[in-house]
């Protein structure tokens, strides 16, 4: 029983960070139905910038905010210079660009910060909120989950209550009518890219701040696969779906794999994808994804 509870807490810890990265991908997918494979690397680069700023003596949360702004501006620049040149409805060239970005950003981070893992400063109070017998709920878990929920609330408010958010959702829904309504498509998508990158950087910073993990240029590879899975599971266009997806994937990883003896531990990544397949068979647009609302 103790072990089960401990595993559930681990699931929440991992799930929250997957959810933050998944949310970044959901934002871009919502607007363009494109999966940005470079999202994880953009986030990793942002987290390294945070670490560098902290090394230079900037307080930790200040560094996170500056790092998020840096990622946002970089993403806006990438959208303008690389993405906008291509036809948004033709996905293959765009997917190849995001894969190229993935490799380039990974290489740049490796050149600047080398591949040896570094420890990331703590973002949250260390230690446990409570510990009974062998069950420990760390402050890290509580704060990681809370941060995730706060980010989702902020994003949801931004998308539903502000004019730029409305424009963003309009572009997601119908590009032609958006143009005819006077919305500048490029600028709006650029806003989406910036927002996604900022959310991703926060996610990577929280991920790297996990006391049991260290930061290194390839740390997001696994997280990227799990986050894409989480995003797809939740419904690729749903913000809260990303949280549900993230928690589910975290749960599969640390609970299901632990308790079903014939699944070897090495299969935990594949197990997550298999769960995704099963969900998609029954709900093709994910748990909370929009099923096309169209009446004929």
């Amino acid at each position: 029983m103790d072990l089960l509870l401990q595993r559930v807490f681990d699931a929440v810890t991992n799930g929250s960070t997957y959810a933050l990265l998944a949310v970044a991908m959901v934002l871009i997918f919502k607007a363009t139905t494109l999966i940005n494979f470079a999202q994880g690397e953009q986030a990793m680069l942002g987290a390294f910038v945070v670490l560098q700023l902290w090394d230079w003596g900037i307080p930790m949360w200040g560094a996170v905010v500056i790092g998020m702004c840096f990622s946002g501006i970089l993403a806006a620049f990438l959208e303008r210079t690389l993405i906008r040149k291509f036809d948004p409805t033709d996905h293959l060239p765009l997917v190849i660009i995001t894969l190229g970005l993935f490799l380039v950003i990974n290489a740049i981070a490796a050149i600047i910060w080398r591949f040896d893992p570094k420890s990331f400063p703590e973002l949250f109070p260390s230690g446990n909120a409570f510990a009974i017998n062998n069950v420990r709920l760390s402050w890290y878990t509580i704060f990681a989950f809370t941060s995730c929920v706060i980010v989702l609330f902020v994003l949801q408010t931004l998308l539903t209550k502000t004019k730029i958010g409305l424009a963003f959702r309009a572009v997601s829904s119908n590009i032609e009518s958006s143009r005819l309504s006077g919305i500048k498509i490029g600028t709006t998508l650029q806003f989406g890219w910036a927002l996604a990158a900022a959310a991703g950087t926060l996610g990577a910073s929280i991920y790297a701040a996990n006391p049991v993990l260290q930061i290194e240029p390839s740390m997001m590879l696994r997280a990227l696969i799990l986050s894409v899975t989480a995003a797809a599971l939740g419904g690729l266009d749903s913000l809260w779906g990303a949280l549900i997806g993230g928690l589910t994937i975290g749960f599969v990883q640390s609970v299901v794999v632990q308790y079903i003896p014939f699944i070897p531990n090495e299969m935990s990544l594949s197990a997550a994808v298999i769960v995704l397949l099963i969900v998609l068979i029954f709900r093709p647009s994910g748990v909370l994804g929009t099923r096309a609302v169209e009446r004929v």
Partner: protein
Amino acid sequence: MRPPILRVEGLKATYGPVQVLSGIDFSVYHQEIVVVLGANGAGKTTTLRSISGMIETRGLIEFKQEEIGNLRPSDIVRRGIAHVPQGRGTFPELTVQENLRVGAFIRVDKDVNTDIDACYQNYPVLYERRTQMAGSLSGGEQQMLAVSRALMSRPQLLLMDEPSLGLAPKIVEDLFERFVVINRDYGTTMLIVEQNAQLALSIANRGYVLESGSISVQGTAENLAQNDAIRRAYLGA
């Protein structure tokens, strides 16, 4: 006589290698309803898309005596031209009310809510459905929403691309009656592309007939409705 609100001269447009419009001339005057008739592929949609800046063109497009050819759509709508595209010009995943807000995207004044109420008075069914997703509306309701969305930008010229497409005759009649009211009450000039020639001519002041990229016949709505060639081709007489 006042100069036309919209003057088009020698308008040419191509889709890839195919020339769709081979230099057409026409004008629309203030507060007129002008209808463009023609068969499928004659270039009707292309004409509207040229005016609203959705495709590149050659030739002159003048709105309120200013050249607007090849401006971006976002600039053209700010000058006072709204366009209801063919099919469903709505945002299916947004609520009815949000659709109207998107229509008012270019506005910074404080009267947006007043105008939303006016839309609801024009089409009370939209008020009943204001919190529903636009995609869940019937075809007729979606067309009402698309027109209202366009009106929310307070246009002086409203372009409409086959508003009757796919709708039941009774609904189309109501829709067109409402156009007349909008034209009268707001003084909105309208350029309507239509296959339903009889109905369109019944509310229009003047009309043009497009045939394979050029204007073949033009005249007042009464004259066009009497024209034998048009009756045979478009009125099924």
